[in-house]
């Protein structure tokens, strides 16, 4: 059985928006298709070895914890860059997308460094952008609606090397101005969307899985279709409650 190796970065510090739901979805959707998986938590002080993993997850945390994590992440920067270049899959959510970029300038002008695997930069806005978030997302030419929730003070703007994950149908997205949300660069995805993002958006989950399987096996798999009826119902309800017509 092929084993997909998942690295969960800073699960103790960065976990405030139900992040482990994303991990559960990745694991279960692999398992239901006959793949096994391993989850390795990597915390402050631990080494990150790029060749050990196929998918790397980083979630959202409180400002205080994000600061602690940001400095530790600097020590892993070279390894993360090498992994990204090698096609490892990244899903970095909320605080994660900010850490994936060049850095974060907080409300007092202090600069918190990022690792720069996504071409974007973030600075704090006056108010928090909070509420339902609905996107028309696009990956590899496929489009799909993606729904969740956002709650962030950061305003993120993409550079030329990153493309948005989607355009905002409802909510604020990266910065509340340009209607973009998230960022994609090679197989690294950053997003402000939690809820968590993957349970209600199996389309996105399956994209990540197939990339991770390709990273492991060298071959893009044809994924066995799963019964997504509960996922689709939950997505429909969330989109409707966000006030977007399907």
């Amino acid at each position, binding site marked *: 059985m092929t084993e997909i190796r998942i690295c969960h970065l800073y699960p103790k510090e960065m976990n405030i928006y139900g992040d482990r739901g994303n991990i559960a979805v990745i694991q279960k959707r692999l398992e239901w298709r006959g793949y096994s998986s391993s989850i390795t938590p990597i915390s402050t002080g631990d080494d990150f070895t790029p060749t050990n993993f196929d998918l790397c997850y980083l979630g959202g945390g409180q400002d205080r914890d994000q600061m602690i994590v940001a400095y530790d992440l600097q020590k892993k920067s070279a390894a993360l860059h090498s992994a990204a270049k090698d096609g490892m899959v990244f899903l970095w959510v909320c605080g994660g997308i900010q850490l994936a970029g060049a850095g974060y300038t907080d409300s007092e002008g202090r600069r918190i460094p990022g690792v720069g695997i996504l071409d974007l930069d973030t600075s704090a806005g006056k108010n928090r952008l909070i509420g339902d978030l609905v996107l028309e997302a696009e990956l590899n030419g496929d489009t799909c609606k993606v729904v969740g929730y956002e709650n962030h003070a950061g305003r993120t703007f993409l550079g030329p090397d990153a493309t948005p994950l989607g355009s905002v149908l409802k909510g604020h997205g990266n910065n509340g101005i340009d209607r973009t949300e998230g960022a994609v660069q090679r197989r690294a995805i950053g997003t402000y969307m939690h809820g968590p993002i993957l349970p209600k958006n199996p389309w996105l989950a399956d994209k990540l899985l197939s990339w991770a399987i390709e990273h492991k096996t060298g071959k893009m798999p044809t994924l066995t279709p799963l019964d997504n009826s509960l996922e689709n119902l*939950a997505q429909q309800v969330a989109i409707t409650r966000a006030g977007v017509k399907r």
Partner: protein
Amino acid sequence: MSNIALSLAKAAGWISRALGFGGGTTIPGMILLKLRPRALQEMAQELEEIIIISATNGKTTTARMVSHAAHESEISFVANTSGANLSSGIATALLQRNPDERFGIFEIDEAALPDLIPQIRPTVLVLMNLFRDQLDRYGELETTIQKWKEMIESLPETTKLIINADDPALAYLGSLHQNVEFLGLELTDYGSETIPHAADSLHCQKCDSPLNFKQVTIGHLGHWECQNCGFRRPNPSFTGDKINLKGLNGSEFIAASKKDSLEIQIPLAGIHNVYNALTAYATCSTIDISTTKIQKGLSTISAAFGRNEIINFDGIELMIMLAKNPAGANQNLKTLLLEEGNMHLAILLNDRTADGKDVSWIWDVDYEMILDRISSLTISGDRAYDLALRFHYSGFPATSMHVAPSIQELLEHLKSTIKTDGRAIALPTYTSMLDLRAGLNKIGATHSFWEEK
């Protein structure tokens, strides 16, 4: 004070109830504060002793316990017992106060607390715990901690602070005030050495280093010490020891202070209610209520609405356990595990303002601990399908859960599943608890919450 403002506001409560808009537990106060913004200060000044209780979890039940003991002690007091815990609810309670009521016992929302403290000026301020809760509404836990810190730094020395030493962040806040008493639970078999997934305050407030825990009771509450600077759980002057949890039937423990020690029995389940009762004991003891009155007050307490409240309908005993955030929900699940056998479970998830519009938090609840004890699972509420996914991805078979789109269908499904003389447990969020009670009320099984005092 202007009689017109008072009369208008009082009439509004009556009109609200008469028109069926709800209890009028907040509307009169809301109108009064619009007409007269300083009304809270003016009305609170007339009280001799003001006790304010705040926390993420347990404030309603604890305030109810203190009120009960005060009642036993024949203290005449005003309180906001219906859980209306923002400025409007406190103003409504004060507006409806009898002039002979010299004490005030209020439970206040943790986010509303910093603005209300300078207006109400409590003589005793009781802070129980802070857990992650409705991040879309309250923001990050650290933000609340910072606001509470500023609040405590501007407290007059005369205000007595009662603090749960088991909460590391609160213990730090307590250390900033001279006039403080701590409370805490002694080591107990119900504690654990492992920190649950949804734990929050795990870093030292003084130096940011990780905390070591010798025991965890709920979330991040327990016996803790900083690895780096040595800042540690203060020695409490009120302690709870020899805890015995008797399943859903209740709990008992020994409460002790420098003055006395007494056995406390409460008909409420779970270690969270032991914290609530210990906090009530510390508070009552501080305002000189005698131990016998405290004992009696606590042993005869009934559940606050929706908190371990039992409602019977059509031969089914339905226990409602409010579950509105990860720490509270986990605590309810742990309490259910104390019972023998399998259970019929109903979980209700709404995403309205009072619930938090972000439903991510259900993924931080450790539902996994009860999966093999569920004989039937019924799911309802505005966001029922999010819950269904939560269970689906925990490996619970989709064929074993039933999604009931309305309260009526939920109750009918429970009836047909359980047949007669069975028991079911409902874990609702706040507004779905109100919906559930309204549904039960419709079939004649309960009374309206504003009738409670």
